């Protein structure tokens, strides 16, 4: 028992680090669903492609910071491409038909990307080294990469918060999530807002790729597991809610770290899956969700 207690601080801190990653990952997915009623199952692949873009830039001799910018731009571009291509037919349907079609089409894209990348170089992975020794946090030695990565995620969440609460554009986006027709009645174009959110979600995917690679390598094989994790956290947090994603991310991150350390990897993933299933069955709107 005391053994566990002494491990607890490390578990919780690791859980928070993981949870922040989960949260930001889910934020991108949940925004797109909340705004456009579209489920993007190629989300993990977007993160992976951004990671590969950074890798490519670094290998080509580009300094790391510029390479990261390349990655972010790649993410944003992917979102834009998605909006300009697949979304056209998807947006012609409504409600359930729209979600279903988006699910299927993005799954197709995910397969194409995954198939190519894994065939091309199955071992490719992005790692961003943050130099320097471990930093002591509440008595627990944390790797610098984890600290920097987490700090970046927190900063991005802060920016998102300010954006949605205090800017005209951010409030306009929220209004479309609240009531699409109401938004149109005040002159807001929902498809324009969706385009903005898609680009944003692409950039967020890239940010996750960057921060995650500071903690552990982001490999080409990770695509689908990233998407599944994002989906689980999104469901628990509530579709359409960024704060829900943040909260659910932290909770699930800590639970996952705890379970992995005490029980085992496979079973801890099952716990996450069960959490998502239970949420759907008992409280489908999730912790803080808007759309069901």
């Amino acid at each position: 028992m005391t053994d566990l207690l002494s491990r607890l601080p490390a578990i919780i801190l690791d859980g928070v680090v993981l949870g922040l990653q989960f949260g930001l990952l889910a934020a991108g997915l949940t925004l797109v669903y909340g705004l456009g009623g579209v489920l993007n199952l190629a989300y993990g692949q977007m993160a992976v492609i951004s990671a590969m873009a950074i890798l490519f830039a670094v290998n080509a001799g580009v300094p790391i910071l510029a390479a990261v910018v390349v990655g972010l731009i790649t993410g944003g571009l992917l979102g834009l491409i998605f909006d300009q291509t697949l979304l056209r037919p998807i947006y012609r349907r409504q409600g359930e038909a729209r979600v279903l079609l988006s699910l299927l089409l993005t799954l197709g894209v995910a397969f194409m990307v995954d198939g190519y990348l894994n065939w091309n170089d199955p071992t490719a992975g992005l790692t961003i080294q943050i130099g320097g020794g471990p930093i002591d946090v509440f008595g627990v030695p944390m790797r610098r990469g984890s600290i920097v990565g987490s700090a970046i995620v927190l900063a991005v969440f802060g920016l998102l918060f300010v954006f949605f609460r205090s800017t005209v554009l951010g409030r306009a986006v929220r209004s479309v999530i609240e009531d699409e027709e109401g938004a149109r009645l005040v002159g807001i174009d929902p498809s324009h807002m969706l385009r903005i959110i898609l680009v944003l979600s692409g950039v967020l995917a890239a940010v996750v790729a960057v921060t995650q690679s500071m903690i552990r390598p982001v490999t080409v094989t990770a695509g689908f597991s990233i998407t599944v994790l994002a989906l689980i956290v999104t469901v628990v947090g509530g579709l359409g809610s960024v704060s829900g994603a943040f909260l659910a991310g932290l909770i699930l991150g800590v639970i996952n770290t705890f379970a992995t350390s005490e029980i085992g990897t496979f079973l801890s993933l099952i716990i996450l899956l069960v959490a998502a299933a239970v949420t759907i069955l008992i409280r489908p709107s999730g912790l803080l969700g808007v759309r069901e």
Partner: protein
Amino acid sequence: MLDVRQLAAGYQGNDVVHDITFHVDQGEAVMIIGSNGAGKTTLFRAMCGLSEPSSGTVVFDGADVTGEPAQRIVRRGFGFVPAERHLFPRMTVQENLALGAYPERPGAETMEVVFDLFPRLAERRKQHAGTMSGGEQQMLAVGRALMSQPRLLVLDEPTTGLAPKLAHEAYEALAALRDRGLTLLVAEQQVPLAMAFSERGYVLENGVISLEGTSEELAADPRVRSAYLGLS
């Protein structure tokens, strides 16, 4: 200001309203009356761009806006308050009103004007729209539409779900707007209220306009009296 000619609209190929022709001139207060199911909402939604008309034209201030999506029509100085209001439930009164001015930042004076018109909203600035009563929500919906300083305000059944006293108050507010020179078009089931408020009107029955005239003419018409005023 608003010229609608031979408009037809409906759902999935079946027209609910046919051959609708009417107009609203600057400064007028015009009503379209009819019972439930006559097609008022279908007509207004098609006119204001929430749905597409199947045929006909809508001309606003000389510009052909037929089939333009709502988000563009609204930016031309055309305000629409639908029957379901479509407020933003988890945003405050203030945020709802602020968005009414989109894409501009909300002018402080405009918001004060709205609060003067609807003092109850001023008391509830920070309240979430979803928690307000029907009457307050109606006020908020009208207030939001006013934030963009429209030249024409169109309302679909503004008294939906309102108790008689509140319905009267609503029309008092609309009358105040009319007196300030705002052009108004109202679709209404509660005919006496609409008649007291407007100068001219049209009667919509089974998807077509069956009668038109000034409020006095309509009030004197025996068909209107028996069908909508409960008089013989």
